[in-house]
């Protein structure tokens, strides 16, 4: 649900980073946070367990600048990846404007990726959204690992609608902003249709 405030001349959009546990969602946000100038970002909030696993969500508010005289404010959220946090994942998808699916490139995680996309599809549906319509970007993360599955093979297995796809190594930032930009572009282009 995009929130357009004509009085304050602001657009607020919600982007959710989805994916299996440990695929690099929090690392994406951390990198964006580290590389954004202080005036344009709020606090990075992590509701995490003591062992640093995301418990409820990470949250990063980002001011990107203006479009047509409106300040664009993106709220980035990550979901907890572990299977047993499904209830929290559902809550975080409420009011989502765009989704980034972060896939883990390691061979051993391919089934977890596929399972997580099925879970996303179902949870979106439960909230009244359609994955084939909502702004959606696919990221292949951990490209630096020797066990990484070739990108074209990942694309074959995970792509659902010819969505924009990016290779990434989140800790060093490779592909991180390209991914964000691609989803932001789709979300803002949606506003044209309204």
């Amino acid at each position: 649900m995009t929130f357009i405030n004509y009085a304050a001349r602001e657009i607020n959009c919600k982007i959710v980073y989805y994916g299996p546990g440990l695929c690099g969602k929090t690392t994406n946000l951390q990198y964006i946070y580290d590389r954004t100038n202080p005036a344009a970002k709020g606090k990075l909030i992590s509701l995490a367990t003591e062992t640093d696993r995301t418990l409820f969500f990470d949250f990063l508010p980002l001011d990107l600048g203006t479009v047509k005289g409106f300040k664009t404010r993106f709220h980035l959220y990550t979901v907890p990846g572990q299977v047993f946090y499904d209830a929290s994942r559902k809550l975080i998808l409420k009011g989502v404007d765009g989704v980034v699916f972060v896939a883990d490139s390691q061979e051993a995680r391919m089934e977890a990726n596929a399972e997580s996309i099925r879970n996303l599809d179902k949870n979106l549906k439960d909230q009244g959204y359609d994955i084939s319509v909502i702004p959606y970007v696919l990221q292949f993360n951990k490209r630096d690992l020797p066990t990484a599955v070739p990108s074209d093979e990942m694309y074959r297995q995970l792509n659902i609608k010819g969505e924009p796809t990016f290779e990434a190594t989140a800790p060093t930032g490779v592909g991180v902003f390209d991914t964000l930009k691609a989803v932001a572009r789709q979300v803002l282009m949606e506003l044209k249709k309204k």
Partner: protein
Amino acid sequence: MSTPDLVLYDEEFQKIKDALGRLRQDSNANVVFLVDKNGQQIAAMGDMTNLDTTSLASLTAGNVAATDGLARLIGEKEFSILFHEGEKDNIHISIVAQRVILVVIFDERSSLGLVRLRVRRATSELDRIFEEITEKAAREKSNLSVEFESPFSEITDDDIDRLFSE
């Protein structure tokens, strides 16, 4: 989409701020603000220095969402009021117009009883304002393009590239 977009114009925004301002004064609260259920701040009144309102908004929405989830688990529709008591400051959270969260932060200069009383009055006022907002949005949709031209109908790729070049 499941929830319609929230579109806020000057007139209603001003009314909301007036209502929040009155509530703050009448309840002796430090801060009063409104957040939508997705964590986006709508308006705030009071002393916001040293207060990270964006984080506050997101966490409040997360809190309400989790509590709603808990309510449904035990067969309740919702818990209509949340109250967190601190050593100095307290937070009172309630829902208005079914879709917006009203947050009141107060200290010993006020009391839970007073806040409750004043929140009740402000709630019916805010309910009315949000009804107007919904009606206005519906009207705008039906006489689409007649008067209302969205400023975003002209967004180009260049506009978006520029966002990321700074």
